[in-house]
């Protein structure tokens, strides 16, 4: 699905990724954990080239998406961002109605209009379990929703363009425990249709929802494996120290 090969990234002179290689497994949740500044969000943003927007950033190595290097000049960036979408730490709905937020992607990609568009919006809201709550409030301003509903709306907005991969950067850090639980349950449902990569500071969250976990430290991918192995019997001493709270 997605594979990083010896991926290096610099912000100016600072080397943030020191040659990371990892494969993202389809229809599974992969968590990337590690202390602040370890490069986990940088790695996540590489998967749909969001770092290109950071001035002074420079990348070496490859990320293969369905066998093609997304860092090749000819790679279609619009197609990449459509097929590999991102959910951010803070919900960021557009200042539009619920309907227009979800319809935004299908409209700009020319995927649907009229009844087909309404059906697409409905399906996207159903897949994030928002339809029952908001089916009769499609004209309400998205910014009037609760933080959890806003985050689920942002996920609906992605789902509406039928991506292959959902990148999630600390998607629950602005949410309370109940809302966090709801988003986690949603992730477990969504992985049946999508491939999910999540960056989280919350190790319990990584342990609860992910199938695979990568531990990063100072720009290196120290360990990558099945989540139950990483959290019960990590192979690397640094991973052990971090997940048991002995790091630093």
């Amino acid at each position: 699905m997605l594979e990083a090969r010896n991926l290096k990234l610099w912000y100016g002179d600072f080397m943030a990724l020191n040659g990371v290689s990892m494969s993202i497994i389809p229809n599974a949740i992969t968590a990337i954990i590690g202390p602040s500044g370890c490069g986990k969000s940088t790695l996540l943003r590489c998967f749909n080239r969001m770092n290109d927007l950071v001035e002074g950033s420079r990348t070496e190595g490859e990320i293969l998406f369905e066998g093609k290097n997304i860092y090749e000049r000819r790679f279609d960036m619009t197609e990449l961002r459509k097929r590999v979408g991102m959910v951010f730490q803070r919900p960021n709905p557009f200042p539009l109605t619920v309907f227009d937020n979800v319809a935004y992607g299908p409209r700009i990609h020319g995927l649907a209009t009229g009844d087909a568009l309404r059906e697409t919006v409905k399906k996207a809201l159903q897949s994030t379990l928002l339809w029952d709550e908001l089916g009769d409030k499609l004209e309400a301003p998205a910014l009037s929703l609760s933080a959890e509903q806003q985050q689920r709306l942002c996920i609906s907005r992605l789902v509406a363009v039928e991506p292959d991969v959902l990148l999630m950067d600390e998607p629950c850090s602005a949410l309370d425990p109940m809302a966090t639980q709801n988003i986690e349950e949603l992730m477990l449902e969504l992985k049946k249709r999508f491939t999910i990569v999540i960056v989280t500071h919350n190790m319990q969250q990584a342990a609860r929802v992910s199938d695979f976990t990568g531990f990063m430290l100072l720009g290196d991918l120290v360990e990558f494996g099945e989540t139950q192995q990483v959290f019960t019997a990590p192979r690397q001493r640094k991973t052990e120290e971090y997940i048991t709270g002995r790091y630093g």
Partner: protein
Amino acid sequence: MKRHFDEELAQVKERLLRMGANAEKMIHLSAKDLLARTESDRAELERLEKDVNSLEMEIDDRVVKLIALRQPMATDLRFLMMASRIAGELERIADQSINIIETTHWYLSGPPLKPIMDLPLMAEIVQEMLRDCLDAFVRQDVGAAKRVLESDDKVDTCKKRIFDEMIATMEGDPQTVRRGVCIVLISRNLERIGDHATNIAEEVIYMVEARDVRHHHGEESKPGE
């Protein structure tokens, strides 16, 4: 930075070792009674058993609370899970020691049978197994734990020889049946103590290396397999 959690884990370990010391003492007293034909102070034995039982409950209570409140991972999680299991093994070892003492009391009411060489040997081996598996636990020494596993076969061999010898004795002289059954029961109790020491050794290996060697000594079994 030292974690407060380390102090809480150390308290579990300290109680486990106290439990182990009590269990060792109970086996020692039961073996002494049997071999030297003495009867230990019942009040002392009851105190030890009561202490073992309350320590088992305290350890389990601490483990449940620490898992709930600290959400331990990796070595910490394995230590707590195994601490609870080892506490269970030690409690059963203490129970077996009480069984030996009670059967010995019955056995001593008659004249001694001819010397049974395997019985003191078996008692010595299981005491050594318990001491060694507790040492392996303290030092996190997988090599020492593996040596305990190897001793289990010697215990089983002793028990089989005692069974055969007692059956022959009882068939030859019906007057010995009562005492012969006592010896068979005691050898069974000693064998069970050896089994519990073996379990502790397996639990130490899992705690240290995350390898489950139950039911297949020596074979690799990694998590999730």
